[in-house]
């Protein structure tokens, strides 16, 4: 347990030490989205599902901050320690692979949540927000960030150079987020695009988040939680499998 606490506090210290690189950018980015899409364009769009456009996109933007913050923290920290070989400090010590995995992941989740809270506070400048179910907000925040923490760790395990760290977020993650319904209502899509959207795990996260904030029902809550839980378990299993094999860490 002490090893886990040590690794987690090391991760916390790391991203707090470089807060201008880790916590400031999401505030700037989401402020731009809220200004341009929310205030300027949103005022011309009017209401969606009974709420203003800026309120409609806010849950998606929060989710984006949480998952991107989580993902980039885990992948950059873990790959950085591989690159510098400081990960050997953990490998030579009596620390289980599960502790290593969850230590890095909880560090990333913490950054994601702090980024989300900061964005939420910043959004108050533009609009008020409501919370339909605080319990669901917490469940979705944790499950979504956990899934992305595990995905980031997997990316870090396989990455051999710094380019490999940015390929997945740029070419896969960003399109999935933007097509996950951050800026639009999935239910307004043609049926074939709706089916494709249902294959995108981020759709579940955003719609679930939107429901827990605004009460606008997208996917069924049980189904959403089940899908996220399956991704969480599946990715954890894959990471443990590769960690036990020493993938990218031991020759």
């Amino acid at each position, binding site marked *: 347990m002490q090893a886990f606490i040590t690794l987690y506090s090391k991760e916390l210290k790391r991203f707090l030490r470089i807060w201008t690189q880790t916590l400031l950018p999401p505030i700037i980015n989401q402020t731009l989205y809220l200004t341009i899409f929310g205030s300027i364009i949103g005022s011309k769009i009017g209401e969606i599902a009974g709420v203003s456009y800026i309120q409609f996109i806010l849950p998606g933007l929060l989710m984006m901050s949480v998952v991107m913050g989580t993902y980039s923290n885990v992948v950059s920290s873990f790959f950085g320690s591989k690159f510098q070989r400081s990960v050997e400090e953990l490998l030579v010590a009596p*620390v289980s692979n599960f502790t290593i995995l969850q230590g890095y992941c909880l560090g990333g989740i913490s950054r994601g949540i702090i980024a989300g809270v900061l964005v939420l506070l910043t959004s108050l400048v533009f609009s008020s927000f409501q919370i339909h179910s605080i319990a669901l907000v917490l469940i979705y925040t944790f499950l979504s960030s956990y899934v992305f923490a595990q995905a980031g760790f997997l990316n870090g395990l396989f990455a051999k150079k710094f380019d490999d760290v940015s390929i997945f977020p740029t070419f896969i993650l960003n399109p999935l987020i933007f097509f996950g319904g951050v800026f639009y209502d999935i239910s307004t899509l043609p049926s074939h695009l709706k089916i494709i959207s249902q294959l995108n795990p981020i759709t579940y996260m955003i719609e679930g988040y939107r429901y827990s904030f605004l009460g606008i029902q997208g996917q069924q809550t049980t189904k959403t939680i089940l899908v996220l839980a399956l991704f969480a378990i599946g990715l954890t299993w894959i990471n443990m499998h590769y960690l036990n094999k020493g993938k990218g860490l*031991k020759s």
Partner: protein
Amino acid sequence: MSSIKIQNLRKEYSNKVQALKGIDLEIQEGDFHALLGSNGAGKTTTIGILTDLVKKTSGTVEIAGIDIEKNFNQAKKLIGVVPQEMNFNIFEKVEDIVIQQAGFYGLNKKQATEKTHEILKSLSLYDKKEQISRTLSGGMKRRLMIARSLVHDPKILILDEPTAGVDVKLRHEMYEFLTDLNKKGVTILLTTHYLEEAELLCDKISIIKEGEIIISGKKEKVLNDLSTQIYLFESQNFKPQSLKNYKLSKTENKNEFQVQINKNQSLNQFLKESLAENFTFESIKPKTNRLEQLYLELT
């Protein structure tokens, strides 16, 4: 009791390179053991397997009787390792690096901080504890890695070329530190390219060549069993070509020659054969046997 017991250890990398070809090695509790070998001989692979950085292909490794296959985490608690290359986070403070390592070994924050301060003082790094590690000099970085390896009071310390790039003064301070540590009961396994280091510090030596241990035992025994005895003698009428069974050479000094007596020959026999040729000797003395010479001959 064996601190480290390696039996028939093999390692074949994915590129089919056989780094270890079934080595056996036993290091007793309290030993100061040198593992010598040229680059690529298998030293770092051996250390990698002992410290869980390299996966073995086959064979068994026991640390203080604990099979690493069965309970590596228990075995790891007994080991401290100083790697060949710097492997700490260059953006972190000296103190944080050591405290964190203590935490990975289960020490709580208070215990870790106390132990870290103690070890930093003993390695003359306490004044640098707030410094970012990348700003340290090369020698200080080495000492930091030693501090980090000792923070959990290991029974076995494994050092992979720890004095590479360290200046002479610092190197000798490190020798004293390691000798004291060994006297306190810590078993030490050392690989080094500084052969005088092994000669000066270690009581047992193993030499590894192309993935095989070719000799292992007490330092004196290793030297006696396999080394060539070299003698220097002065003679005014000696003719090297007359004694073809011996490896003879002329030194830089006037009338001085060198003879190498291998383990199948004897000095007595050489003298008898020389006298039979009517050679006379003004003086004869043994040349100090240097481990380096033996090492170069074997590897």
